[in-house]
Structure formats: C-alpha cells, structure tokens
C-alpha cells in the first residue's frame, strides 16, 4: 500500500501558467492524425475483419452456425458439386450483426472459413448478408 500524496501547492496563477505551458508545448509536436484515404497505416498481421469462405473446403458441419454468438451465420443450400459436402449446405454471414469474434474461424475443422485483412466494405442496409458465393469472392467483385 502506498498513500497518494496531494500535489505540492502552486502559487496562484503560476501553477495555471505551468499547466498552460504543458499544453502549449504540444504545439511543436507532430500531429498524430492519419489522412485516411490517402495515407493508410499498415495493418498488423492478426488484424481481422472480412470473413472469407473456401467453398471447396467447407464440409457443411454447421459448427460455425452453432458457435456464432450473435446468430449471424446461417446455413444455406447451395447447388454445387463438392464430394466433401454431401448435404450441400454452406454458411452465409450477416455482417450487420457480426462482431468479428473469430469463433467461427477457430472452430472450423477444415479451415474453410477464415477472417482476413479486408476491411473496406460498403453495403447498404438490406445487403449486409453475404451469401456463400459472395463470401468466397474478393470484396471488389462482391460490390459489383
């Protein structure tokens, strides 16, 4: 335990001026702002946002649907030949409610669903849900 001492009492006005000097000192420091669309900070390796789905790897086990805390993932029927996915069900993701918790990526037994560095997504309110095919496409193709 340590007792916190009250700071030394400053002379009236002198203390205020010292505090002002502390603030005014920052006038000569570089701004920290990043001008976003022109400048971009590099993303750390583990940064995660947009979910991708590899249609070839997905076995349709529904584990991601079960583990999703927000019920953002639902299994959809997709007519696609895949010997590993007999039931022909693939997950879709509603990015309106997705919290990017990474649980689906962690639990996926075949690493078919994974999160990526893509974060510049722009959708309207009615199209937050990405269908399985859209999940497997790059973002700029989806927006088209």
């Amino acid at each position, binding site marked *: 335990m340590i007792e916190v*001492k009250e700071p030394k009492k400053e002379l009236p006005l002198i203390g205020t001026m010292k*505090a002002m000097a502390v603030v005014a000192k920052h006038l000569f420091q570089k701004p920290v702002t990043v001008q976003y669309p022109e400048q971009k900070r590099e993303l750390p390796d583990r940064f995660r946002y947009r979910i991708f789905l590899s249609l070839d790897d997905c076995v349709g086990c529904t584990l991601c649907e*079960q583990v999703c805390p927000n019920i953002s993932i639902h299994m959809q029927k997709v007519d696609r030949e895949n010997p590993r996915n007999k039931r022909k069900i693939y997950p879709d993701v509603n990015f309106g409610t997705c919290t990017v918790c990474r649980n689906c990526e962690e639990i996926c037994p075949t690493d078919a669903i994974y999160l990526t560095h893509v974060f510049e997504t722009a959708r309207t309110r009615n199209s937050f849900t990405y269908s399985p095919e859209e999940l497997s496409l790059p973002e700029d193709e989806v927006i088209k």
Partner: protein
Amino acid sequence: MMGSHISKPDEHGWVELNMGPQHPSTHGVLRLKVKLDGEIVKEVEPVIGYLHRNAEKICELDYYCDSMIYFDRMDYVGAMNMEVGYLEAAEKLLGIPPPERVQWIRVVMAELSRIASHLVWAGAFGLDLGMLTPFFYCFVEREKVLRIFVEACGSRQETNYMSIGGVYQDFNDKLVHDILEFTEQFPKKLDDIFNAYVKNDIFISRTKGIGILEPEVALDYGVTGPMLRASGVDYDVRKAEPYLVYDKINFDVPVSYKKDNLARFLVRFEEMRQAIKIINQAVKKIPDGPYFNPKAKKSLMIRLRGEGEVYARTESSKGEFGVYLVGDGGVKPYRVRVRSPSLKNLSVLPYLAKDQMIADLVAISGTIDLVFGEVDR
C-alpha cells in the same frame, strides 16, 4: 429536449431538471432527474437502463465459450479485464485451469486495458470540467495501447482475446518489444497529462474537498475499486484474493485518505503508474510453454460442461468485478450473474451530489468513472 422546458416549481420551490440521456456530460446514456433550488442540487435520481441488453440472459442461451464477447461489451473501454473476470469463474466451473504462460499473458493484457480504461476516464473527466485539450493526449496514449491489442488479437476494443483455458493467439517477440517500448515512453507522457491537470489552480479548486465519500458510507453502498481506495480503505482484490499470478508480482495499492474528487483522480493516476510497474515485471517473466490448455481444444469449445456454483471476483478498472456462474451439467450455463462495479458506484451518486452545485454534480459523476455497457449490461 424532453422535460427541460420550464414547468411550475414544486412545493419546496424546486425545479425539476432532466439531464440526459443525451447530455454532454453523462458519459453515455445516464439520465439524472435533478431537483434544483437555483444552482443547488437538492435531489438526484439516476434513471438507467437505456443500454440494457440483458447480457445475463444472452449468456444463458449461449455456450460457455461464446459469452466472452458479451463480457467484452460490458466495460468496452477496458475489455480485457472483463474477460479475465469471466474466465476466472468459467475455468473454475469447467475445471480447466490455464497454463502458467497464459496467466502471465493475461496479467499483462489486463493491466494494459486498465491503463486504456483509466486514460479514457482521465480525458473525459477533463471534458466534464471544461478542459478540452488533455482529452486528446489521453487518447493518443490510449491509441498506442489499442495498437498493441490489435497486434495481439486483431481487434481494438472488443478484443475476444482470451478463451477458456488459454488465449486465442500466442505472444511473440514483436509484441513483447512493442509493450516494452510503450511502457518506456508512457510514464513521461503520463506525467505531462498529470501536470496539465493538477498544476492548474482552477482544477484543484474544482476537485479538492468536493464530493467527500466517507469510508463507512462507501462500504454501505457497495462502492469498490479506486473510489473505495480514495476513501481510505486499503482494499484491492488483487492483493486480498490474488487471482492469476498477482501474488508473484511486486506492486503497491494506492490509497488516499482525502476522500474527495481530487483523491479519486490521484488514485487512478497512481494506478496507471503501478500498472506500468506490473507490466514491466510480467512481460519479462512470461515463461515458455503452451498457450492453450489441451483439455479445451478448439474443436471441443462448444462441448464443455460445467456443474456447480462458482463466484469469482477480479479487480477491474472500475472496481470489484464479480461473476457468479451456476452450471447444471449442460453445455450452456444455467445462470450467469455479473456484479458490475459501475452500477454500485453509481448508486452512491444521489448521496454524493445532494446539496452540491450543478457544476459539482457533473464533476462528481465524472469521478465515478461510469461505463454504461457495464452499468446496464
């Protein structure tokens, strides 16, 4: 604004004023029904629940491993502390203790997020008092902490970094290097922020001797954390009932006997300095080993079963954060109960703000350090 129109004063000649839920100083969605006698606050009635999501019910409907993100969203400015609190309970209930390495990692992350939380508080408190600039210095520093979080787990605020029996992703040398770099430059910046506040006569006059909370009253209302310690009660869960590896770390608990706003301010700043001390020790001591308990393998995440009752408490940045878990042997918890420190600390506001001025009501509610995700849950 609803209710802010002039109405007839009541029988005492008091005027009712409705501050919030959208008000610049209420840190979210606090609504205060205030009875005013001129400038003097005669009665305060906090009205809460505008951010209520009933996280307890949602946790009951989900698997044990899924509840983490709802705990992140309770104290969203210091999410790691919430995760530690939940896992303390869940791991005891499920019988999956984390490996040694994980415990040290969790200590580092919890203390980093304590710094992040206190920095938000310090900046917002300045805004409450009308200081515009130190807010930005606090957030510049906080951004560095959040950058470390992104590097560790990919998310800034709602991290979802820890999982039952471990952490999702391991520490690496770059992270350790970044954390050490941060702890090296942070104390100097912290002193700058500190001086920008306490050297100011007006700041001292706004905080000193205002909002005095006697220790008996504080305990009676269930106040914990920095507020309780600023009232002169030397109590910290990290010391009293050490969880993780806090008993192997050398740190001090700051206490003040002045009981006022200034004391709370000073205690929180000292806590940040102590947190740096803890991080510096813990980062260097992280042992090698697995970062995941093999009993909680990834594919088994949703099949964990727990039975019995566990109450675990941790020292979050706001105070004593308790999680009471009741399991019935199923894959989902039977009952989850959260003791949120902000809620208890808020309940003392009507007592503190009685017969103070409006300006002091704002200052006092600033020192309580409210985060509404946690109050309303």
